Each structure stands twice: as C-alpha cells, then as structure tokens.
C-alpha cells in the first residue's frame, strides 16, 4: 500500500481584489453602492429565478425579501421544515447600535468594537455597513412580532455581551435565535403561500452547476426518495452556514455540514481564512466517548456569573467547600476592566491555560466554574430565574446538577467559523452569480466574532445587503442562456454526483461513517483547535490524506441511494470534511501569527496573549482549489485600515 502524499507547501497566485468596494467616506459607502447598483424593473423580476440554499437567519430572510421584491425564489433546506435551521439555537441576543441606553453607543462604536474584536482581520467597509444596518434589523423584527424582552414601560430591554462596554444586545430570554428565526420563517411562509417561493424541505444541495463561468444552478438530492435532480436559476445564494462540524464535537446541529460551500469551492469559489474558527468559552463539558454534540451555555451568563478555578493545583474539594481566598477569579484578575466579559477567544484560551496548569475542575480536569452564588445573593433567586431560567434548566437536565446550588462547570467548544467562502462587498463569490451570506461567507468577523453578532450579520445579509446587491448582477445579466438537463456541463455534474453516491455504497467496508467523522474531528481538535503549532499542523496534514484513503477503502454505508438513508447523507458529508480539514490545517500552518481565535504558540507576547504580525499577515487568505489532495493556490486580499488603527488588543 502506498502512503498518500501530504502537502504543506502551496503556490501564491495573483492578489484577489474586492472590485465592488466603494471608496470615499466610510459613512457613505453603503449608500453609494446601493445608488450605483443597477436595478431590475419590478415587472421583470418575476422572470428571474434565484436559488437560495438554507433557511437560517440569512437564507430565510433573503428568500422572503427576494420574493417580496418580486423574484421567483426556489429554496432548499435539509431539515423537514425551514423553521428548524440551526440559527434557532442561538441563545443570547442580537447587537444593534440603537443607543437606547444612552450609554455612549453609536454606529461608529459598534463598527469599532467589531473590527477590534475581530483582531483587525476583517474589512472595514463591510463592518461599517453591518453596524449601520443593525438598527434597521431591530425595527424589522419588532414589526414582524418578534417578542423581544421589554421593560415595564413597554420599551425594549438590552444587556451586555463580551468585548464591549455598552449594553446593546437585544434578546428574547435565552431564545433570541429561535424568535428571530421564526420571524424570518413566518415571512418566508407568507411568500410560500403566495406562490413566490418554491420551497424544497428535506432536500440537500450536493453540487453547483457552473456554465460559461457563471453559477446557474445546483444538483440536490431529495432525502426522502433519494432522487437527485437539477435546479436551474439565474443566480445561486448559499446560506448553508458554517463548517464547525469538521471537529465532530461542536455546538452545531448534528446535520449542519460544509457540503454546499465545499462543492462551490471545488467549482471555483475561493475559500477565505478557513482556519478562523471560534471556540466558545462557555459550553457544558463532555462526559464520555458516547458524546455526539456539545451544548452551549449562553455568553450572556457572563454578565452575572463569575468564572473561577481553585488557586491550588489538583484541589478536588467540592466548590462550596473552597473558601473565597483560595479561589482564582482569573478573568477578573488578568483583565480587570472587562473582567468576565472579555471576548470569546481570550476567555477560551484563559480557560485552557488554567486547565493545562492542572487547576481545572470536574472529570478529567477539563472545566472551570461559572458561579452564580454572588448574583443570587445580590439579585435574588427570582431575578436570576427570570433572566436565565431556561439556561439553568437545560444545564440541570444535561448534567443532573442544580446550578442554583452548585456552580456550573463549563469548558470551551467549537461554536462558529469566521472563515467561509470569499465574497466581495456585494457578497458575491469569485464565481459570478454565486453569492454567499451569513456564516457561509467570511466577510465581517475577522479572526474572532463578538457575541450576538452572528444573528446581526445573518439578518443584515439576508434582509438588506443581498437583496440590494443581487439586483446589480441580475440587471447586468438579463438574458442568460436557457439551460436544460441535456446541457453537457449539467450532465457532467449529475454524473459526478451520482458516481460519488454509487462509490460510497459500493465500498461495503467495515467502518461506520461516524467512526471516520470522530477520527478526523479528534485530530482537528488536537492540532487545529485552541492552540496550534507548526509541528502539530504538519502532523495533521500528514494524517488527513491517510484517513481519506482509509475512508474510501473501509467505509460501510448500508442501504441504497434510492431511499431515505441517513447513513448515506452522513458519509457524503464526511467526504467533504476530509478535504476541508486539510485546507484548514494548511491555512493555520501558513498563518504564522496569532490573531483572534487562531492562536499559534510560536507567536505570543511574554504574558501569553496572541501576538499579531501585521507586517506579514494583514490580509485575508483566499484559497483556490486545484484538486483533491493537491496544494491549493493562495490569493491574498490586503486589508486596509483607515478608521480603526490596528493595535495590540487590550482588555486589561
């Protein structure tokens, strides 16, 4: 048997340029772009078909809005209903620069906080637009009937989140994502009933159809009948979410996957900053090898909960028996001005550090305490219940421990991916006619996303940005060639898809899909997780092609392709993880600096903070696919900072 070759080197191609980004004063750029974008006559819009893949906050809001504008929308989700997309699990809230608290907030401050929080690896123009749109999102959602938390006077309540010193996070108890998603789902439902959206639930995109260099449709599989089919359109929008499930254990839904974006990448869309993954500091620690997923405890808990570990190593006393002066409230100690509300990347790394020192708590020492004793004393149990009741219940259900009595145990877990398909200011990928919105793109969060900003970005992209920019593309390409199933390019994509499914079923080996997923996930967590090193990443890059080779030799997928077959769905997604994982490691290896969630041990300050290297790495890394197991080509997009000057982030 030959050992599959690994790559650690790559070629650098021409820089990638955001040709749609307007110049001029940053406050005016979005208005300028909207004015300059060509429009499609309302009467002509219904002649245009737009495919939207995914029905989360980004996809649901985009599908509804495009249909309201008059376009014919054909939309897909793998779930049995568009209401179940994983945005629904977002707990804490959504940021908006409303300044209702009169606490010094402004659009500029939200812009500033987000660029800084992202450790200066995001585009200024995009982030400024996001901050500007944030205020419209709240108006839109309230009009839809989203039941945000309110004060006794009937006005909206807000709370604080990590990385900021104002209170700008709007919330609906611990279910903000659910309520915002249902708002988008209901708007989408109205358009489905009106016949403007053709909805395909339980249908998964398996490939992208590119004709004459333009995105013209997708191949999708009906998960009930197993039948693969082609769907043709004038433009394709990917709103399929992130790729955190590469790690096997994450806070993502079990079926969230990278297939839509990875297949688009294989067809020519550049993939930007794949190594930028967010490890969320407050998740429930794993309990054993049976674990299938991890559950997040909202960051909002850090408003009132205090994080600590024992001062002494190996202190196994129950938490309530450890006296106050033998506890280390390490975030409050190291970062006195932000305390427990430091950004996620910093909180996660700090937790890892104290556990590595041997001061972790709970089974295996992989946990820290999140303690509400003081909050309960200060506010009373009732007030704590009203604010966090559902989160406490969830914690108790999973761990069988009562967080009102004993401190919660938390540990970092993979939660979100800042990287994604490279897009320009219009959210268009490097394939004309292919757009990526929400977590599927890379655009707004740099190397670290601030809490309550994912909901903001998903809805900004779907309700406001994409519906404005896609017009420009459609107006400039009004009469595209008619495409049928007989078109050679379509037949080729179909044949490839069917071939892959047949191949998966034909191996009939001795290992289950989950066993491979677990293996690659553990490898990624070890070498491409919270701390990364040159040597570790090289080890992972050597190992991944071997796992891939073994996968195609030993995978066992029961049943057939012509039926409801969940094992086949899984196996097909793992094929893509086994390629994406390799790109993530290469990206992490090449970026020999620490920034945000990407921590390279070789690049840290004397006190252990991430040391950015702006001289060498102030760019977004956009990778071009060249073939499975072949080194990709790197295209750099230089980042220019005119308004927020890059500094070493300080939350001390």
């Amino acid at each position, binding site marked *: 048997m030959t050992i599959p070759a690994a790559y650690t080197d790559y070629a650098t191609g021409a820089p990638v340029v955001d040709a749609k980004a307007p110049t001029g004063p940053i406050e005016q750029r979005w208005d300028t772009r909207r004015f300059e974008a060509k429009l499609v006559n309302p009467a002509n819009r219904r002649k245009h078909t737009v495919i939207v893949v995914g029905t989360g906050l980004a996809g649901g809001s985009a599908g*509804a*809005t495009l249909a*309201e504008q008059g376009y014919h929308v054909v939309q897909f989700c793998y*779930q*049995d*209903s568009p*209401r*179940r997309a*994983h945005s*629904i*699990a977002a707990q804490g809230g959504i940021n908006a620069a*409303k300044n209702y608290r009169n606490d010094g907030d402004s659009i500029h401050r939200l812009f500033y906080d987000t660029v800084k929080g992202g450790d200066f690896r995001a585009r200024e123009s995009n982030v400024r637009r996001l901050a500007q749109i944030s205020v*419209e999102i709240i*108006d*839109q959602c*309230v*009009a*839809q*009937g989203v*039941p*945000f*938390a*309110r*004060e006794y006077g*009937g*006005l*909206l309540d807000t709370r604080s989140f990590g990385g900021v010193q104002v209170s700008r996070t709007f919330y*609906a108890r611990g*279910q903000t994502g*659910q*309520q915002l998603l*249902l708002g988008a789902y*209901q*708007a989408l*439902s*109205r358009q*489905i*009933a009106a016949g403007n959206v053709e909805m395909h*639930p339980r249908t998964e995109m398996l490939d992208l159809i590119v004709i004459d260099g333009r995105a013209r449709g997708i191949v999708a599989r009906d998960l009930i009948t197993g039948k693969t089919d082609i769907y043709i359109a004038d433009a394709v929008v990917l709103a399929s979410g992130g790729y955190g499930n590469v790690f096997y254990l994450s806070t993502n*839904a*079990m079926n969230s996957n990278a297939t839509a974006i990875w297949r688009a990448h294989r067809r020519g869309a550049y993939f930007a900053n794949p190594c930028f993954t967010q490890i969320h500091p407050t998740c429930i620690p794993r309990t*054993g090898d*049976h674990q*299938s*997923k991890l*559950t*997040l405890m909202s960051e909002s808990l850090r408003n009132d909960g205090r994080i600590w570990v024992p001062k002494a190593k190996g202190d196994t006393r129950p938490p309530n028996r450890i006296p106050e002066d033998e506890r280390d409230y390490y975030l409050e100690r190291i970062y006195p001005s932000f305390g427990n509300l430091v950004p996620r990347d910093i909180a996660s790394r700090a937790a890892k550090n104290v556990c590595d020192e041997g001061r972790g708590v709970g089974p295996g020492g992989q946990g820290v305490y999140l303690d509400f004793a003081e909050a309960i004393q200060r506010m009373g149990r009732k007030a704590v219940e009203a604010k966090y009741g559902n989160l406490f219940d969830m914690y108790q*259900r999973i761990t*069988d421990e009562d967080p009102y009595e004993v401190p919660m145990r938390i540990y970092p877990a993979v939660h979100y991916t800042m990287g994604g398909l490279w897009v320009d200011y219009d959210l268009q990928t490097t394939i004309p006619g292919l757009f990526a919105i929400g977590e599927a793109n890379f655009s707004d969060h740099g190397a670290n996303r601030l809490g309550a900003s994912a909901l903001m970005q998903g809805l900004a992209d779907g*309700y406001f940005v994409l*519906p404005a920019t896609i017009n420009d593309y459609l107006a400039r390409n009004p009469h595209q060639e008619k495409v049928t199933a007989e078109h050679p390019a379509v037949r080729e994509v179909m044949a490839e898809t069917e071939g892959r499914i047949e191949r998966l079923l034909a191996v009939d080996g*001795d290992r*289950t899909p989950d*066993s491979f997923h677990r293996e690659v996930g553990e490898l990624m967590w070890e070498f491409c997780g919270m701390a990364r090193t040159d040597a570790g990443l090289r080890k992972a890059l050597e190992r991944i092609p071997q796992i891939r080779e073994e996968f195609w030799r030993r995978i*066992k997928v*029961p*049943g057939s392709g012509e*039926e409801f077959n*969940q*094992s086949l769905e899984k196996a097909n997604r793992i094929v893509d993880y086994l390629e994406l994982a390799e790109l993530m490691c290469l990206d992490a290896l090449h970026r020999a600096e620490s920034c945000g969630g990407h921590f390279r041990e070789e690049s840290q300050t004397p006190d252990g903070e991430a040391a950015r290297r702006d001289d060498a790495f102030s760019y977004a890394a956009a990778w071009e696919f060249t073939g499975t197991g072949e080194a990709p080509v790197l295209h750099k997009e230089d980042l220019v900072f005119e308004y927020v000057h890059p500094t070493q982030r300080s939350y001390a």
Partner: protein
Amino acid sequence: MKLTLRVWRQRNADAEGAMSTYEVDGISSDMSFLEMLDTLNEELILNGEDPVAFDHDCREGICGACSLVINGDAHGPERTTTCQLHMRSFKDGDTIDIEPWRASAFPVIKDLVVDRSAFDRIIQAGGYITAPTGAAPEAHATPVPKPDADFAFEHAECIGCGACVAACPNGAAMLFTSAKVSHLNVLPQGAPERETRVLDMVAQMDEEGFGGCTLTGECATACPKGIPLMSITNMNKEWLRATRKAGKR
C-alpha cells in the same frame, strides 16, 4: 446498563410496519436517549442491518426535529424533548418501546420519521405578520406592555415538534395553532390581521385532517416547552370574536 428496545420499523410510507426487538449493552446513564440510539445504530450498521431512522438535529431541545413516542409518551417520561432526555431516567434491564408520532395528519416516512409539513401549511395560512422588509417603523414607536410581551413570548416558545398532536387522543393540532395565534394576536403589530389570521389558520388545520379538540389536556402535558392549555381557550375566544365580526360585515 443493559436494555431491551422494541422499535417501530417501517421501510417507507407505503410499507407495513412492525415492532422489532433489539438488545443494547454498555449504556451510560449520562448518555442522551438519542446517543443510546446512536449506539444501537453503530452496531446495526456493522452487522449489515439497516439502522433505525429518526429525526434529530440540534440535540439541545430547540429545533423541534426529534419526535419519539417512548413507552407510550410523546418525548418520554420527562417533560422535555427526546434529545434532552437522558438515560438516567431509565433503569438497567428496562424494556423501552419506541414509536413514531402517531396521527393521521403525520404520515410515517420511514421507521420513526414522520411528515409534519401540515404544520408548515398552517403557518403559511396566516401565522405571520405582514411586514415586508424595509417597511418597518422605528422599534420604539409602539411600546408593548410588558405583560403582553411576556404573554406573546410564552406562546412563541413553541418549537413545532408535534408532541401535542401525538399525545392527543383525537390527533388535534389545537395547541400548536393556538400558540401562534396567541403570540401574534396579543401584539399591537398583529392587530390588523387578527381576525383573518385565526380564521384562516383554523380552516387550514381542519383541512389537514387534524382531529377536533375535546379538552383532554394531554397536549399541554406533553408539550416540552410548557405552552399552557389556556392557549386553546384563548384561540377559541379569538375565533368566536372573528366569526362574529365577520358576520356583522
């Protein structure tokens, strides 16, 4: 622990179904119910058998995908979703029956997976507020009294899992429908469509083949999100009010 599972197996919508018996061993009490089923499925795959199909996704109790009748109860013995049920609720040596939602409006697709698209069509009939993107007034233009906002939220918590239908002896969808009607009709933003919403949603509910309500209350007992039974009373009131008003026009 060691368990005996009796699971409903049905190849597809048209096939006959039956209960099949399986033994699982080495189950930890920290496992979730679905992780226990994962363990069974890993064994079935390696033995060359067809794994048990079941709906699941977020596994944190919010997406509403999971939907098992366990020992005769929708979502099992605890008041939670199936994915949040843990094996510590069972004892070593237990025999556990696992079935799909049973209701004529929810046909079986395979094994434990059912078709709940009727719920989507009820929402499409009127479970929304017409507010096209861009047309919204400033959020603070209309204050909502806190009790109304809290009432709306309490009903908006519904995850659309369908346990209410599965638990109901009549297979009624009253709790699901009334939760959405109650959420939207109490809000000032929902007022312009208050009457059409309840009339259209109830009409669609009937058309989908859900049964009638006899107020047995099983729905509210099974609901993992605690949607109150009063929600149904509220919808009946809304429906009566809308019907009267329509009569006067």
